[in-house]
Structures are given as structure tokens and as C-alpha cells.
């Protein structure tokens, strides 16, 4: 087969225009949607109806937009968790497990209980739950961190295995020790352990009635600001970037790489753990099975799509929050996975456009 045209990849010698990365990212998401639409059509769906449904179900009213933001909240936090780790080229694929451990530790505050729930002020309980959630996630991040730092064990597999272990660990407690009358969940937490919601204000402001948006979103946004400052302005962030770009140079510059591997893994785990806390304290109000619909994995995509920029993580998380909200309604359930896979593929493939110029070359110019 002889095509008259061929594609030529030319290495970019000059810097690409400033708008290109953003354009390429947006383009790749759109391309992913188109490809998914075609796939959907092939297997007998109605892509246009689905897309229309997608927008009305996620941004159509304040109530649904609030749902979208509620879903975006844990995503922002796990997205940040992955961002921090990936900045140092640490492949933390274990945000899912860290999320579960964060949720478990946070719920200890209520279920043990660690403080007297009747007398302790709500503020203190919430803060304690946040701290416990972060500790839980950090412990789950410490394990792969120390194994990598001390024995150079591949962190990808370790974090993945820890995901499964965390899942079964949680299951044991909710099926056995804390089971609510035999159901696979703990009893509902006392209201004092709930993150404040906008609907709590419904008595004063009618417009907030039924709006489930909770304080977690503010926590997530503050976390994004802090992570931005750490990565872009602090000495530690400089060290993280240096180790990520060239560990040999970092060692040569006198940095302690092992210590940083452990610390960054713990920070990453703490952020994912905080997401778990926010989810049980802000949304589910109990510990149960399936508190995460693969948030930990979606966080990887979000971090990558956001090009490891904490503020972009927020925007991308809202998009994915919408996907999850809409996905709950779209059947079959695998479509959400499929779409995520295609988006990630498109995003990493599109990076080639930043490194190369692609030109269409006419092989037989005289005939044209």
C-alpha cells in the first residue's frame, strides 16, 4: 500500500508556544470523549444523549453542581497526593489504600471512641479526625517509602498490594467488630463528627436546603494552596523537584534522598488519608465498604492531566467529579473506567506533540 502522504515527526528545536500544553491537554480530553462516543455507538449506546445527560446531571442546577463538587473534593486531595509523589518520580499507586486507612483511622476517633463525643467541642473532634486520617494515610505511605529508601524495592507493586490489604483490613472491622446489626457498615457517626454542610444553614438561608456541599471542599482547596507553596516556593519543594529530575545530581548536591523518599511518601499518603477522612466525615458519616469508587486511581489520572500543578488539579478534579456523578447513572458501570483509561491514554500520547512537530508530507509533489 503506497499512500501519497506521510507523517513526519520532527524534533522541536525551539520552545513551544506558551498556550500549547493547555491546548494539547484540552484537545486530548475532547478526543477521548469522541473516541468513547464512537465506542459507545459501536456497542449500541446513544452517545449524544449520554453527553447531554452528562451536562444536565452534573452542571445543570445548583443541587447537581453541589453533588459534582462533593465528588470533586476527595479527588482534589488524592490528585494532590499523586502530584506530590510524582513530582519526585515516586510512583505512588497506593492512594486508594491510603484513602481507606485514612478513613479507618479517622473513624477510630468516633468508634473507639478516642474522646468523649458528648462533651468535646465539634471543632476539636473534626480536627482530631483530620489528624488521625492523615496519620493513617501517612503510615500506609511510610511502608513503601521505607522499603524503597532502604532496600530499593519497587514502590509500584508495594503500593498496589497495600491497596488490597487496606481493603480487607477495613472489611474485617466493618463486617466484624463494628458491624451495625450485621450490615456491612458501622453505625452512623454522631452528628458532632460530621463536617458542616451548607444544608445545615438551610433554616437561615432557604437556598441551601438540600445542598450537600461540605467543609471538605474548603479543606481541599487550602491543601492545594499549601501544596503549591511547598512545591513552588519552599526549599523542600526545590529538593523534591531536584530529586525528581535527577537523583544523581541531587545526591551530588548533598541532599538526603532516602529521607526525602520517606517524607514525600508520607505527605502523599497523608493527603490521600485526609481525602478518606473528608469522605466519611462529610458524605457517608460511617465507615463502610466501597467508600471509594477508585478515587486513588482517578487521582493518578488527575495529577497527570493537571501536569502536576496543584491549582490545575482542582479544575481537573471538578471534571472528573462530574464524570463520577454522571457515571452513577450511566449503565453499564464499566463505562467510567473505560473513559478514564481512554482519557489517560490520550493525555500521555498527546505529550508527543510538545516534543515533536508533526508534519504531513506529500511524497509525490509533482503529481499533486
Amino acid at each position, binding site marked *: 500500500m503506497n499512500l501519497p502522504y506521510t507523517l513526519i515527526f520532527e524534533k522541536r528545536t525551539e520552545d513551544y508556544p506558551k498556550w500549547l500544553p493547555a491546548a494539547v491537554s484540552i484537545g486530548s480530553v475532547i478526543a477521548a470523549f469522541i473516541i468513547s462516543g464512537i465506542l459507545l455507538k459501536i456497542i449500541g449506546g446513544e452517545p449524544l444523549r449520554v453527553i447531554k445527560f452528562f451536562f444536565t446531571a452534573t452542571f445543570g442546577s445548583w443541587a447537581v453542581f453541589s453533588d459534582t463538587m462533593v465528588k470533586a473534593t476527595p479527588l482534589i486531595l488524592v490528585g494532590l497526593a499523586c502530584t506530590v509523589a510524582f513530582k519526585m518520580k515516586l510512583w505512588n499507586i497506593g492512594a486508594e489504600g491510603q484513602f481507606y486507612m485514612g478513613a479507618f483511622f479517622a473513624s477510630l476517633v468516633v468508634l473507639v471512641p478516642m474522646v468523649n463525643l458528648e462533651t468535646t467541642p465539634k471543632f476539636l473532634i473534626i480536627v482530631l479526625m483530620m489528624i488521625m486520617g492523615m496519620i493513617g494515610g501517612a503510615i500506609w505511605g511510610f511502608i513503601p517509602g521505607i522499603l524503597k529508601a532502604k532496600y530499593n524495592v519497587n514502590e509500584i507493586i508495594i503500593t498496589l498490594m497495600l491497596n488490597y490489604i487496606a481493603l480487607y483490613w477495613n472489611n474485617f472491622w466493618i463486617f466484624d467488630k463494628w458491624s451495625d446489626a450485621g450490615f456491612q457498615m458501622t453505625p452512623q457517626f454522631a452528628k458532632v463528627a460530621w463536617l458542616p454542610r451548607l444544608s445545615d444553614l438551610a433554616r437561615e438561608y432557604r437556598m441551601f436546603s438540600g445542598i450537600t456541599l461540605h467543609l471538605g471542599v474548603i479543606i481541599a482547596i487550602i491543601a492545594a494552596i499549601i501544596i503549591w507553596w511547598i512545591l513552588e516556593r519552599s526549599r523542600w519543594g526545590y529538593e523534591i523537584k531536584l530529586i525528581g*529530575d535527577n537523583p*544523581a545530581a541531587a545526591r*551530588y*548536591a548533598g541532599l538526603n534522598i532516602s529521607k526525602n523518599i520517606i517524607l514525600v511518601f508520607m505527605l502523599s499518603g497523608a493527603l490521600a488519608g485526609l481525602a478518606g477522612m473528608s469522605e466519611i466525615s462529610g458524605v457517608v458519616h460511617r465507615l463502610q465498604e466501597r467508600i471509594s469508587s477508585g478515587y486513588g486511581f482517578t487521582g493518578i489520572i488527575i495529577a497527570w492531566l493537571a501536569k502536576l500543578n496543584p491549582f490545575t488539579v482542582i479544575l481537573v478534579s471538578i471534571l472528573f467529579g462530574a464524570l463520577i456523578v454522571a457515571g452513577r447513572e450511566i449503565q453499564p458501570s464499566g463505562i467510567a473506567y473505560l473513559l478514564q483509561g481512554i482519557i489517560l491514554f490520550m493525555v500521555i500520547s498527546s505529550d508527543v506533540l510538545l516534543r515533536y*512537530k508533526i508534519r504531513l508530507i506529500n511524497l509525490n509533489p509533482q503529481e499533486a
Partner: protein
Amino acid sequence: MTSHPPPNAVANAVANAVEMKDIVIRFPGVLANDHVNLTLKHGEIHALLGENGAGKSTLMSALAGLYKPTSGTMRIHGELVDFNSPKDAIAKGIGMVYQHFMLVPTQTVTENILLGLNEPKFFMDLPKYDQKIRDLQEQFGLNVDPTAKIWQLSVGEQQRVEILKTLYRGASVLIMDEPTAVLAPQEIDDLMETMRSMTKQDKSIIFISHKLNEVTAVANRLTVLRKGVATAEGIDVTGMTSEKLAELMVGRKVVFRVEKKEQAPGDVVLDVKEVSAINNKGVRALNKLSLKVRQGEILGIAGVAGNGQSELAEIITGLRDCDGEILINGEDVSNQEPSVAIAQGVAHIPEDRTGVGSAPNMTIAENTIMKNYRDEPIGTKWSINFTEARDHARELKNAYDILAPNVRTMARKLSGGNLQKVILAREITTNPKLMVAMQPTRGLDVGAIESIQRLLLEQREEGTAILLISEELEELLTLSDRIAVLHEGEVMGILDAKDANMKEIGLMMTGEKHKA
């Protein structure tokens, strides 16, 4: 196609081994070769000279089938050829001996030689082929154990494997890309002997080099490239002078000597006492080595690559553990983190500029603060003042004449010379007491070499103790006050640079102890 028959000597007696005509090779944004002609006569050794980046390797890669010329023609033994892959070139009898060896470290010599061939087709009966390779070695006097794994071999032996690889494929034209760069003087003599014996056995050789003494010793004619253009095409080597050659290569008259001031060295800064260390393969690389460097003195370290130089630099700078003592201004820094050596005022110009000395995807500014980002005014307790950092980088950029659009340029976009200046500038601004410089000028063009060497001498005048590790003997003789020769991790002797000569150093490099 494995045993491509050698070209019929009678039929091809008239035709040249290689004729490259009007070769143009264009990469995006670069004209690597601009209408270059090169003719290799039958049975001759043709030297190809030029600075780094002049287009020698590109031209040869085209001959080896790795790149397709944008325009121009190539004839091998009179036959017009158009290579689409290295396989085509190999089939026509072209053999390339790469400067950076193209060998698979985990495979044996025989496996490496048989790689990419069609014979044996499936089952690798290695013992049978080991014998074939021993026979070939006999014929050309290139001895190396066929059953050894590549990583177990010395650099010289690896080079022999590269040559055997081409001969086994029946190569009639050998391209040797700076084959002497990695060898000791005596090994160079052996290599030249091999080259001469190969031409007697019907081979023609293109010899890439930038050293005139080697060219005159072995080549018949030479071609010089400068910035992709041939400034000399196939001229006779007799009567060529180093001044003339340098002018052809660089395009202007070159002052070969940098001035070194007489000065008396001060106190001992670095005192290495009976240090031993193992390398990455777990083999002993340094064996009870001792040496001293004083203030305002350059101690040169000579030796064939892989005799413990890298490990010596690494133990001093804290990058490798060792047995023994390393005193810097009286403080023992052995087996400490690199940060301890840095705090003691040790600056380090690493051998690998891109792999160790810089962070490729970070800006010039971020690269220049690698050693002082913790210190005021750039670093505060928690944060980094990036405005301050960029100002600092701008000052260095001007002072050291670093060519780059601005200080936000990524380090990977810099040329080798400019990147080396960034590294030197960064290390010098730490006001070092000791500077460990490893191969600071390797791979740079003449202009950059000069400025790097000047900077090192300025440091010497400032009173810094300098440990200069280099494989360029001329550089060592020019810059050093004293020269220590390393062989298998031991010091063979320390000579005063004024009365050292190449021959003597060469002998010590191959393991002969200095008779004091």
C-alpha cells in the same frame, strides 16, 4: 550474508573503496553536513578530523546506514549505494567501530559478535562459534576471551571486540570513531599496528581523530570538517603542521598554551591516606591509595579510564564509601554524606555533566543554586527567594559568558561548553578550598576548553587546591604542578609536571612503577 566475500581485489583495483559526493545532511534546525566529499582509496588509512559537532560522526553515520543523507551520492567499491538501515551498510562491507562502544554488557564476546546475523539461524551453539572467533583473532592479532562477558573486559579489550565484530561480518571498510580516546599510549601503539596489518589484508580504514601526532603516525591522507563543511578534502598528511591543522579545524589561529603563573603551594588541604574502595561491579577499584594536594596547587591524575579515577573523585566528595582516611583541612570526611564534604569547602566538577552535574529539566537559575539554596539571601529558613536566585544566575551568566536566551532556559538546552560553564560558575561561587575536577574539558570545542582551563588556573591563583583528573595528557602537562599516575587503583608515582614526559607517564599508565 554473514561471510560477505572480500571484494575482488583485481576487479576493484581501480575503484575507490568509498566515494561520498556532495553529501548534505540536514536535521531540523541544523545543517550537519554541507556538500561534503570524501574519497577513501583502496587499502589506505584516511584520517577525518574536526572539532566536536563539526559533523564527523553524522557523516560516518550516513556511511554506516544510520541516517539517510538529504542529498548526495555514495559509492562503495564503485557501486552506487542507497542505505535504508545499518544492515544494508553491513552487507556492503561497511564496519563501524563506535567511540561509545555498541556492546551488550551482559552478553559474551561471541554473542555480541553474532548479534544481528542470520547464521546460526536459531540455536546458538556458542562453543562452536567461540572457536571461529579465536581463528579470526589469530589472523589480525586481536586477542580477547570469546566466552567472557563484556562487562568483565577492559576498555581496550572491548574495543577489540568492536573491531572483531566488523571483521567477522567481512567488513572491507572500517570506520573508527576516535578509537584512541580511551586508550593508554602503549595501547594506542598496538592499535595502530593492528590498523596497519588490516590494511595489508585488504581493508581500508577511515580514522576519526583530533590528534595530529596520531594522524601523521598512521594515516595516508586527511579530510577536515568544520561546522559541517570540508575545509580540507583528502590532502596528504606529510608536511602538515599542528598550527595549520588547528586552523583548518577551528577556523582561526589557536593559541595552544594557556599561561600558568609560577607560585609556591601552601598548606596541605586534601590528605588521602591509604584509601581502598570497591566499584559498582563489586571489584576493588582503589587499593591503599595515598596522595596530598596543597593550597594553590593543581595535582593532575593521569591514567587509562577505569583505573579508579571516578571512584577517587567519588570518595572525596562523599558519593562513595571507602576504607582509610580522607582529611580535608584536617577533618576526616570519609564515609560521610556529600553534604559534609560540601560544608568542608569541596567543590566538584563531575565527569558526567548531564547525568550528575546538572538537572536537565530545571532552569539555569535552579541549576546555579544547587549548592547554595540553603544560604541567605537565596534561601531563608523554609523558602527560596527565586527573584534573588534569578539575579544571582544572571550575574553568573554575564561573568562567565554563558550563552543562553535567559536564566529560565532549561539546562538540557545548553551546549556542552555552556553547561560546563554553569557548573563551574556554581562551584566557584561556593569559594571552595578544594576543587575536584574530573574531565572538565572532555567533548568541548577549542574555545570552551580554553576558557575552562583559564578558570581552573584562576582558581589555582586564588589559592584553591585542585585535583584535576583527566585522560588528556597534554591538558595535565599544561595545567598541573604535579602529576600522579593511577593504575588499577594504585599510584604508580608522582612526577613534577615540569620534568615529566609523555613516554614516562605512558609507561606508568600501563602499570610500571616510577623509579624515584
